[in-house]
């Protein structure tokens, strides 16, 4: 075990932790016998303190592929495998992840604990909809299997359960078949919120949809955005001999140091957003792009989080029910515009119906944006929380670093049941995080 300063992707908060690297199931008994409490951590792809604690179990070396059925696409892997590593293996064989977030540098365990969603939620749901079973370690020392059929309460509380029910060891899930690693992309300019909403409606049957939205616009340009629509290309679509090839060395750029805070300010961000919106001349542009460029555009810039400086940043992601989305987003975007606290592009997605115990998505619109940490930010976000709650929405725990306890309890309808199940399987809170303490989940 070694102690180091550690933070997740937002570089906030920064904590001192002792890290234990898990390599083998044999090491788990010493974890159980230890008097300390732990939280499991994958690649630290969450933004806040979900996988931070004084004692961390790093799963990065517990990362082997255990089994793969080439006819059904059912794969079984240890929880520390990254999506990056998985993609290298599955794409050449004609398979892809059923759900993927905007970065491939997350682990499978993290994907389950966050119940990640992607650009296809409105068609294919979240990650938990594709899981067949999970093998995990409980605080009793028992290793158990859970699924929709077996130990259902454990399964429901583990998907999106932020690692609080136990250590996820192995996950068995179903991949989706693809013919090509390329995506047929359409990108469409939308002048304002009205237009982007109707575009999302128009393309609601397309597999992948996401909008990049300029949060600094106001008045008739409020909600100016670029919609990206994607479908998996078929084998013949791109004139290339090897449609399923994955190329190495994909990180073209690297941010070598923490930028001084002055670099990212209202002015520079406005310029960036303007250039981004106008990067295509016509209103509609069609192209064929690699899966990497479509799903993981930010991954091309290594350490892009350093652009936010040493103080780091906070990502704020919320969802509003469909009926309130237009009005709610209008109000929130107006507030953000007025505050001048926004940063780069924000991401807008349309979610489909969703169900679950500790479940973030709901039928409606979700907006995710970054806020560099500045004076007044936290108070501003508390005000935004009030608006989100007012419209019946909630925040995504995986992005959260600062939400107040009451906001969580008032916005997640099954929070009490979630806590009850955690207490069933993790009675002494052997598994806890700074986030779970902050939100009052792991306090007795």
């Amino acid at each position: 075990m070694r102690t180091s300063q550690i933070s997740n992707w937002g570089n906030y908060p920064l904590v001192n932790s002792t890290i234990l690297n898990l390599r083998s199931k044999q090491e788990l008994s010493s974890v159980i016998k230890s008097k300390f409490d732990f939280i499991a951590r994958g690649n630290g792809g969450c933004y806040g303190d979900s996988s931070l604690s004084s004692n961390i179990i790093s799963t990065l070396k517990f990362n082997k592929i255990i089994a793969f059925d080439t006819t059904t696409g059912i794969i079984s892997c240890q929880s520390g495998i990254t999506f990056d590593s998985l993609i290298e293996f599955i794409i050449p064989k004609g398979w892809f992840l059923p759900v993927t977030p905007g970065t491939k540098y997350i682990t499978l365990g993290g994907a389950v604990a966050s119940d990640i969603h992607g650009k296809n939620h409105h068609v294919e749901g979240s990650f938990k909809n594709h899981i067949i079973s999970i093998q995990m370690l409980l605080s009793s020392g028992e290793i158990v299997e859970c699924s929709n059929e077996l130990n259902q309460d454990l399964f429901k509380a583990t998907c999106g359960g932020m690692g609080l029910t136990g250590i996820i060891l192995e996950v068995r899930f179903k991949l989706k078949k693809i013919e090509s690693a390329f995506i047929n992309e359409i990108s469409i300019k939308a002048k304002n919120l009205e237009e982007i909403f109707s575009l999302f409606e128009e393309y609601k049957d397309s597999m992948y949809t996401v909008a990049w939205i300029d949060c600094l616009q106001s008045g008739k340009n409020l909600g100016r955005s670029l919609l990206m629509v994607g479908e998996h290309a078929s084998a013949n679509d791109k004139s290339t001999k090897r449609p399923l090839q994955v190329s190495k060395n994909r990180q073209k750029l690297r941010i070598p140091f923490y930028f001084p805070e002055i670099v990212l300010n209202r002015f520079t961000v406005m310029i960036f957003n303007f250039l981004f919106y106008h990067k295509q001349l016509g209103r509609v542009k069609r192209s064929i792009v690699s899966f990497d460029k479509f799903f993981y555009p930010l991954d091309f810039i290594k350490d892009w989080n350093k652009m936010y400086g040493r103080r780091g940043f906070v990502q704020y992601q919320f969802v509003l029910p469909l009926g309130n989305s237009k009005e709610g987003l209008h109000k929130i975007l107006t507030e953000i515009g007025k505050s001048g606290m926004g940063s780069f592009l924000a991401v807008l997605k349309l979610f489909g119906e969703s169900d679950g115990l500790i479940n973030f998505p709901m039928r409606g619109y979700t907006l995710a944006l970054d806020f560099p940490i500045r004076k007044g930010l936290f108070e501003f976000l508390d005000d935004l929380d009030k608006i989100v709650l007012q419209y019946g929405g909630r925040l995504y725990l995986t992005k959260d670093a600062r939400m107040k306890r009451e906001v969580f309890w008032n916005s997640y309808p099954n929070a009490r049941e979630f806590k009850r199940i955690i207490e069933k399987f993790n009675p002494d809170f052997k598994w806890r995080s700074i986030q779970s303490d902050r939100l009052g989940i792991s306090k007795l």
Partner: protein
Amino acid sequence: MTVLILGATSDMSVALVKLFAAKGHNLQLAGKDMDQLTGLKSDTELRYNVLVDVLEFNALNYKSHSHFYHNLIVKPDLVILVFGYLGSQQSAIANWEECKKIIETNYVGAVSILNVIANDFEKRGSGTIVGISSVAGERGRMSNYLYGSAKAGFSTYLSGLRNRLHSRGVHVISVKPGFVRTKMTENLALPRLVTTSPERVAELIYKGVMRKTNILYILPIWRIIMLGIKFIPEMIFKRMKL
């Protein structure tokens, strides 16, 4: 080629497995933790489409070594001995069990299994043996001499073996790593400039095997560092706090 790795669950081994499997070689993974080995086997077979066998092997169970080797259905072309035990110098001074474990794992166990393999390789007249020793064996210093002396013994053994087997068409490589970021050194604060990764170690070992190097310092700078250390007169060295 079939490659036998002794101590296959170590971080260096995992990197070696990836490298050799990617080049299409079949693997025999020997170690204590069968669970971890099975995971490594399935991952390697699925990713690289090579044959991987997992075998139970305990460096300290000398009696089993002959049986272990002769039971291999396919005899390896290349053997890489990766297992080792750093232990705690501090507690080993007073605790004989810990001291014994350091000496036996790093020297006695290594000699025991390599004797068996060397005899077989000599008989058939082919093969390569790679032994991972350490720069700690170059000179005994106060912070590390139990581990160091065992490794010193191992280095001398490998050099004698190299001498014996050379005329028989068998090549022996002594690998002497300096600082490597692995499970063994997890609790130590290592100087960044001269510390390397298991992946780099695997790359250099692969190159060494292809080029039939005799003694491989990883990183190469350690050859110079150790030369410097060996040159210090004993009168001065005994007063230092290394």
